[in-house]
């Protein structure tokens, strides 16, 4: 059709084609600008609202004995420690499984039945909704330990389900780009396969793997739904993964938001330490700021490592 147009009336067609081209260019430029807006808006809201309550006191106190909008205003320490414990445990579970699976897929399986199946299952696993992962962990532990088994470790198991596929995929990519030459050079020096993998392949892809793991951590550290179900929340600082509910930052944000505005009497508002009706929203924003800082920090470190330390393979 286009060709016919060109032949019959070339000049007019050219003009309309150029008009079309300009229109699409403008459209594409505007979508790019549009895409920038949400991140800026979210960062700006979080920083401006979060900074009200974001101070040393907030970071070093938990929610024990905090009532309504009254003083003491409470803090986020229990949630920060909970998030760290749960995420570290999830990482300790996921990284060995993910890394070894990736090694199996890249170095040992040569497109066999098992590797095709694993590859397919990893794809399916990466699509598990986060709340279903939480339900799974809950179902698993209630099956063995009776209903209502909710603690930090259950949450960590839920997070590892979400983390394992990410770790596998990024490790696979990193192992894949190690040139075959290097493996052959190592074999030619008489190294065994396992030593070649450990000393040459893993060593060359280490920065990529580390940054992949950091990005995977950054992704699961903000997961809320599974922890809401599997770990719950608690006002004091619980450092035992296996006993009792454990707060985490995202769940803290949600709980503060969900509890809504506090009720303050006129006299309480006039006190030395006034009752603040919007205290929970302030805490939610401040905790969100802590969370977003952790996530951005992990992202930046991850990207820095992969840029700075990655070895150029000739």
């Amino acid at each position: 059709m286009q060709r016919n147009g060109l032949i019959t009336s070339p000049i007019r067609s050219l003009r309309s084609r150029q008009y079309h081209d300009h229109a699409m260019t403008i459209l594409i430029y505007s979508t790019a600008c549009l895409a920038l807006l949400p991140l800026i808006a979210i960062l700006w809201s979080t920083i401006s609202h979060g900074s009200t309550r974001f101070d040393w006191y907030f970071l070093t106190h938990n929610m024990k004995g905090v009532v309504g909008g009254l003083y003491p205003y409470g803090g986020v320490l229990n949630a920060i420690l909970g998030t760290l414990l749960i995420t570290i445990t999830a990482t300790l579970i996921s990284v060995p499984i993910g890394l070894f699976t990736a090694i199996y897929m890249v170095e040992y399986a040569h497109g066999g039945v098992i590797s095709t199946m694993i590859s397919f299952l990893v794809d399916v696993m990466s699509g598990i909704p986060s709340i279903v992962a939480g339900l799974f962990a809950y179902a698993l532990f209630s099956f063995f330990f009776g209903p209502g088994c909710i603690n930090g470790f259950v949450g960590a198991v839920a997070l590892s389900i979400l983390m394992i596929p990410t770790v596998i995929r990024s490790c696979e990519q990193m192992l894949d780009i190690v040139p075959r030459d290097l493996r052959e050079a190592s074999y030619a020096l008489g190294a065994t396969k396992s030593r070649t993998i450990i000393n040459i392949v893993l060593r060359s892809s280490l920065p990529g793997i580390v940054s992949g793991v950091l990005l995977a951590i950054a992704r699961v550290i903000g997961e809320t739904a599974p922890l809401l179900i599997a770990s719950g929340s608690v006002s004091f600082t619980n450092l035992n993964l296996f006993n009792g509910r454990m707060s985490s930052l995202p769940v803290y944000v949600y709980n503060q938001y969900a509890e809504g505005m506090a009720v303050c009497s006129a006299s309480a508002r006039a006190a030395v330490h006034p009752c603040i009706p919007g205290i929970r929203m302030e805490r939610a924003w401040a905790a969100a700021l802590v969370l977003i800082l952790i996530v951005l920090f992990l992202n930046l470190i991850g990207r820095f490592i992969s840029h700075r330390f990655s070895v150029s393979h000739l």
Partner: protein
Amino acid sequence: MIHTSSTHSTSTFVSRTLCRYADTIFKYITLIAGLIILFILTAVTVFLLIQAAPAMVGDKNQTVWAIRSLSGGRTIHFWTYVGPLIFGTILTSFLALVCALFIALGVALFITQYAPRPLAFILSHVIDLLAAVPSVIFGLWGGLVLVPSTYPFWKWMNTYFGWIPLFSGQASNPPRTVATVSLVLTIMILPIICSMARDIFQQTPVLLKEAALGLGATQWEMIKLAVLPFGKKGVISAAMLGLGRALGETMAVLMILSPGDLYSWKLLVASQNQTIAANIAAQFPESDSAGVSVLIATGLVLFVITFLVNIAAHHLTGNAIHTKQKNNIRHPLCINKQFIRCSETD
């Protein structure tokens, strides 16, 4: 001198044997890790089934009571309970997908075909960072910032486009509606689709693009001729993955939407729909064991839906993955000029 094992001194022979064992052991460790994946997914399915079973076939009285209490007395049947939830889940996700797909394609084209290098670099990183923002922060932002500030826009839509059934009814204020939720979901799945589309567009062969430009095509015609057809399959599977993410999204929906249990298309009216994931998160804390097993059963339904979507995505990229695997086997042979003449086999 080649050493046969008989000429070894005992100690080196032992260490050599250990070495060989180490090799085998290492291989089996990696294989076991792989099998664990297989085991985990089976376990997920089995445990969800075990826990959901009471809701589907178990003690009728208990289940009936649980469903009645969960649905606020609306129904006593599992499928009539979960029906509106499925509808709400698909409605919000699909709306988000439609909006996100066009923006994501625009951004991906901008990054790969239009933007100068530094700008493209910055924009890709901004998009990646957007993907890193936790969903609870989207929920908080949506609930506290977006909900109050978008009301005038929804009101305007309602006034001028109210004749379209989707925008009919009385626009709710505050707009804790499907429309606002879909807007947030759009922002959330945008980076997923965008970064995949970007990676695919970047792989468009330069020759293909130059061929189009050489025929006198404008930039946009080149994109239509070379880039989009090349990336079509990948974009569809990216969209599927984005849809999968939207279907399972819990927090943003939970924190923004005012839930309802209707099969309603009125996007601008609150309390019409609810999604499976948000419903689980909302009801779970106050449920007894019968209630929990009903919720787990709804979770299983969600799992099946996302599973089907992912299968579809996998099926679409299946061919691409297949050729990649073939290349993995053939490629090194070609490089080393072994056995086969590459030009003849490829």
